[in-house]
């Protein structure tokens, strides 16, 4: 920068420092303003987040490929060391799985016959979109991933995201060609689940550790380490029966679940379009809010029927979600 001497500097130099200080204070204030805005107008922020994901996704799409191939190389190297052990384990597993296959085949036929007899209406079919992980927002503060498909591929907010092993999370924001996945371990994640054996209902609440908590369990629920946890399908957000995790520890005041996926090994994921309304649209939530004054309705979070009307699916799916016992508002965090 050119240096001015003489009276000019004497006037302008304090002015410039004052201006700098003012700009600094203005920026600090706008940072706090942004924090408030982020709390207040979630729809706008969501759109901006989706747009920014779209913006960097072409770069990440290219750059994450070499990173993935380096990861593959290291994995191959470790695999060679465990080849014998792995082979033994796989043989054993294969023997067990063949037995299970036989059981499953019998059950499929039996199930089909029983469904015919009982006039059972099947839940809506799943449409799966396979997608690649292009970014991992690893960090102490947020547990989320970026995947390389968006509204272009039929991915939209609220859909369940699965790996080969089980549930990974849900779509938090869907851009045009990239979306952000909120992992079930994130502190903002709540998934309605059931315990596989006892059919006890609960919520799986993330707390930014790699072992999310099982909350809203009833007092008489029986949970033991090793129990499998599945999605319950309540609220229509996720298809029922997706494996979520295994109970890892049970103590006086907390039950923790080990998810089935290993975050650092996630590469390809499937997004499930369940064909239901999914989680509530933001407009529906806004419309349903004024009703809650004084009187607490049965089943909070249920959208008034008429707001569903244009897109409502035929059949029993919607009423069943209305009838499900969702926790009352005092229980909700």
């Amino acid at each position: 920068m050119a240096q001015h001497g003489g009276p000019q500097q004497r006037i302008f130099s304090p002015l410039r420092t004052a201006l700098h200080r003012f700009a600094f204070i203005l920026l600090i204030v706008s940072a706090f303003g942004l924090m408030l805005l982020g709390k207040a107008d979630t729809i706008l922020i969501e759109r901006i987040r989706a747009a920014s994901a779209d913006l960097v996704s072409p770069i990440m799409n290219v750059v994450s490929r070499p990173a993935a191939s380096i990861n593959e190389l290291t994995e191959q190297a470790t695999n060679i060391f465990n080849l014998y052990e792995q082979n033994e384990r796989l043989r054993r597993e294969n023997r067990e799985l063949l037995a299970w296959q036989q059981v499953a085949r019998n059950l499929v036929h039996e199930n089909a016959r029983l469904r015919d007899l009982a006039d059972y209406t099947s839940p809506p079919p799943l449409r799966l979109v396979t997608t690649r992980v292009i970014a991992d927002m690893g960090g102490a503060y947020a547990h989320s991933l970026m995947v390389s498909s968006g509204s272009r591929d039929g991915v939209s907010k609220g859909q369940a995201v699965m790996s080969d092993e089980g549930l990974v999370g849900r779509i938090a924001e869907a851009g045009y060609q990239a979306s952000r996945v909120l992992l079930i371990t994130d502190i903002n994640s709540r998934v309605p689940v059931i315990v596989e054996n006892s059919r006890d209902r609960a919520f799986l609440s993330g707390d930014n550790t790699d072992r999310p908590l099982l909350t809203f369990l009833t007092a008489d629920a029986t949970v033991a380490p090793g129990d499998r946890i599945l999605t319950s399908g309540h609220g229509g957000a996720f298809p029922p029966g997706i494996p979520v995790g295994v109970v890892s520890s049970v103590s006086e005041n907390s039950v923790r679940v080990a998810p089935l996926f290993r975050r650092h090994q996630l590469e390809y994921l499937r997004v499930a379009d369940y064909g239901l309304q999914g989680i509530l649209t933001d407009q529906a939530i806004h419309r349903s809010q004024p009703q809650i004054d004084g009187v607490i309705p049965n089943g909070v979070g249920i959208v008034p029927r008429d707001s569903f009307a244009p897109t409502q699916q035929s059949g029993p799916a919607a009423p069943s979600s209305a009838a499900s016992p969702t926790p009352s508002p005092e229980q909700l965090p």
Partner: protein
Amino acid sequence: MKPGVWQKLDVVARGLVPAFSVFILLLINLLPVSLPLLSTASPALPLMAIFYWSVNRPDLLTGLTAFMLGLMQDLLTGLPLGVSSLVLLLVQAGSASQGRFFHNKPFIVMWWGFAFVAIPALLIQWFLSSALIGAFLPIRATLISYVLTATLFPLVAWALARAQNSLLRHV
């Protein structure tokens, strides 16, 4: 001699190197890495670059740039908006005002300086994120993140110093 259009453009492009380097580091931070440790806590690479440039070239990395880069980080990582903006802005302002202290000192002084600055920076980020989310985030991940950030600083600083020497010598 008056500089031509291309020369001016060249100077502008070189002036953008610091901000661009922070952006690149932000994207590197987002890369999916198959190390179990890094998926729970990652080093705050943009923070290192903001500190480096604020100390060495405060004229090329202003408060506004730090603010915008922080906003970009919040948008991409899904953090509450404004938190990283504030943290990077404070680090920029604090380091730029103390920049002269580090001049003509061995690198280890700058390393210690960064290790010192990163403590309040990550603590503010942890505290504000917790406050905005409404629950205390596990502090352990923040601690791991701090250790990674402090230990990896020389590596990033070396790369940035190479960039500074080759691209910004005459700007």
